[in-house]
């Protein structure tokens, strides 16, 4: 057996010799046979170690996910046992008589996230395309920084901003206008609090925009330059070039970005709680207050004293977990089917 691998690696990676000796030995260290030694003997071991480390990392992810699932089921067994599958279809949430159902919360989570996506996806894909294809080089860096800064703002700041700036704006300007021109859809009507599903959706949109925009930008940049040039050479306009050469090839990556954004939207808690109105109701209008799975856990967990109440809250976590899994699986399926039906094509 050779010496322990870590030992060898560290000797090669970090010079342990004093500085003055390094200066003397430096040319020798680069001597051909020394290099050769590094390339053959050590790299085999390094490879094995690396392989082992990556396997450990990958297994750790599975173990963590498994443990989370196990713990969620274990802690929610009281409520799982009492309500069974009805938990998913009941609309009541009453801690006093300990009767719990998750439907309004599932609805609120999905609808607020969808509203967020509907707003954020065009905005962020547009931002990404502008940054990569159209924006003058000089202001590109500044704009990219601004988009990434959005991701660095803490959730609670968005919440406070939502409460004191966005909500009054919605109540006074946007919602009356929406009700007037689009009231016939049934989506914009009823009592106008400002707080509600629409406010939550807009907050979510702003929060997931930087994620989708920056990943989309990376994906778009990765489309080979020849593709663009080929499209232009065929006489395509800039828009046609973007559509044919860039978006078509970048589509799976953009979908990936959207899925990541959706994951964030599902789990978003603080900012959403502050503007959604926290009322477990299912209403067609986006003006109506709603409630999300993550919000109810954050709101009620600290003061929940009854065992059934606690158990039901943990089950909400389980529902959120499974919901995220299902949506991710569906999204991956969608990406796969799009790729299969309309594969990316090379023009060059």
């Amino acid at each position, binding site marked *: 057996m050779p010496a322990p691998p870590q030992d060898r690696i560290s000797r090669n990676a970090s010079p342990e010799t004093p500085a003055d000796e390094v200066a003397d030995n430096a040319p020798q260290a680069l001597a051909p046979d020394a290099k050769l030694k590094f390339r053959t003997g050590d790299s085999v071991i390094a490879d094995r170690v690396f392989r082992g480390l990556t396997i450990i990392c990958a297994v750790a992810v599975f173990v963590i996910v498994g443990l989370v699932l196990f713990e969620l089921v274990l802690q929610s067994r009281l409520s799982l046992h009492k309500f069974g599958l009805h938990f998913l279809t009941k609309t*009541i*949430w*009453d*801690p*006093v*008589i300990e009767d719990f159902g998750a439907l309004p919360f599932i609805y609120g989570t999905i609808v607020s996230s969808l509203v967020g996506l509907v707003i954020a996806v065009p905005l962020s894909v547009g931002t990404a395309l502008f940054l990569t294809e159209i924006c003058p080089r000089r202001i590109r860096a500044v704009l990219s920084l601004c988009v990434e800064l959005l991701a660095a703002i803490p959730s609670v700041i968005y919440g406070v901003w939502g*409460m*004191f700036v966005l*909500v*009054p704006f919605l*109540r006074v300007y946007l919602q009356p206008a929406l009700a007037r021109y689009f009231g016939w859809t049934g989506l914009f009507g009823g*009592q106008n*609090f*400002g*707080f*509600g599903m629409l406010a939550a959706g807009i907050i979510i949109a702003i929060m997931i925009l930087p994620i989708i925009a920056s990943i989309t930008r990376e994906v778009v940049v990765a489309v080979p330059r020849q593709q663009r040039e080929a499209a232009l050479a065929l006489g395509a306009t800039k828009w046609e070039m973007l559509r044919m050469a860039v978006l078509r090839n970048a589509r799976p990556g953009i979908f990936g970005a959207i899925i990541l954004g959706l994951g964030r939207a599902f789990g978003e808690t603080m900012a959403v*709680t*502050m503007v959604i*109105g*926290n*009322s*477990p109701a299912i209403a067609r209008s986006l003006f109506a*207050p709603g*409630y999300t799975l993550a*919000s109810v856990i*954050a*709101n*009620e*967990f*600290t*003061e*929940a*004293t009854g065992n059934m*109440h*606690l158990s039901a809250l943990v089950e909400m976590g389980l529902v959120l977990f499974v919901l995220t899994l299902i949506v991710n699986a569906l999204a991956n399926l969608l990406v796969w089917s799009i790729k299969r039906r309309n594969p990316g094509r090379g023009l060059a």
Partner: protein
Amino acid sequence: MRRNWLVGLVLALFLGSAIADTNLNGAGATFPTPIYSKWFSEYNKLHPDIKINYQSIGSGGGIKQVQAGTVDFGASDGPMTDEQLAATPFKVVHIPTVLGADVPTYNLPGVSKDLKFEGGVLADIFLGNIKKWNDPRLAKANPGVKFPNSDIVVVHRSDGSGTTYIWTDFLSKVSPEWKKKVGTGTSVSWPVGIGGKGNEGVSGVVKQTEGSIGYVELIYAVQNKMDYGSVQNVAGQFIKADLASVTAAAASVKDMPADYRVSITNAPGKGVYPVSSFTWLLVPVKWSDAGKKKVFIDFLNWMVGPGQSMTSTLSYAPLPASVAAKVKVTIKAIQ
């Protein structure tokens, strides 16, 4: 030789600190956290060797941790239920510490006078039975106030809290319909309205929304200089909450139960503010560590004695003298 001497000194320091310092750990209600922090830090100034740590994790968490024995004492805004006491492997006593109250706060442009609310009217507003501000029952209690013909927007706490417990406890006592449909709890199933997180959330929504009404803790309203209405008590008076009227609510309880697990909402008597409540420390009766026990008993005696004079600077109502005297007897029962 010199080295031995040094080792001796270091050892002495370690042992010395281990013997002298007593650390006590507590956890629970968030509502009394400011006064508890003040008490623990003031007590530490008087007795530098005693450190009492308090984590404000919520009443539910406080009860759980006491039951599990992971803290020396707990704290809760609502008394432990009989079931919870039965489920605890050892005996726990409730020690009332201070009093708090909930006040109705509203946003009604054009109305400058403090509004008066009957308990039944508040219950009907929060049930959604009274939908408009110009309801005759509101007008009757507030002669001279010109109410607008606008919708009432109910605002409640979305997070579970002792504040909600007190509010719903009061509404349950004044309205049979509330008691039947909603009940009392730290979180309830609200028939109408929108939820704000924390006192700041409720007051934020109320400030933002014309025609809204919500409830916040008295302390929060006082510290933020908010306007709030008065509530009618059993004697028929409309009382605006302040420290005196809240303390009066506790003093008015005629037959205080030995374990202090008593609701003082809607208490009888003149000058009583009806939406008031105790907050409690949850203390195990038997302590295995005699040193800790003595330290904590000393602290409790100080808390119901000189400590009570610190409450009003933080807008908490102090215990009435009769209750403080009774608590001193209860403390003697801790073994």
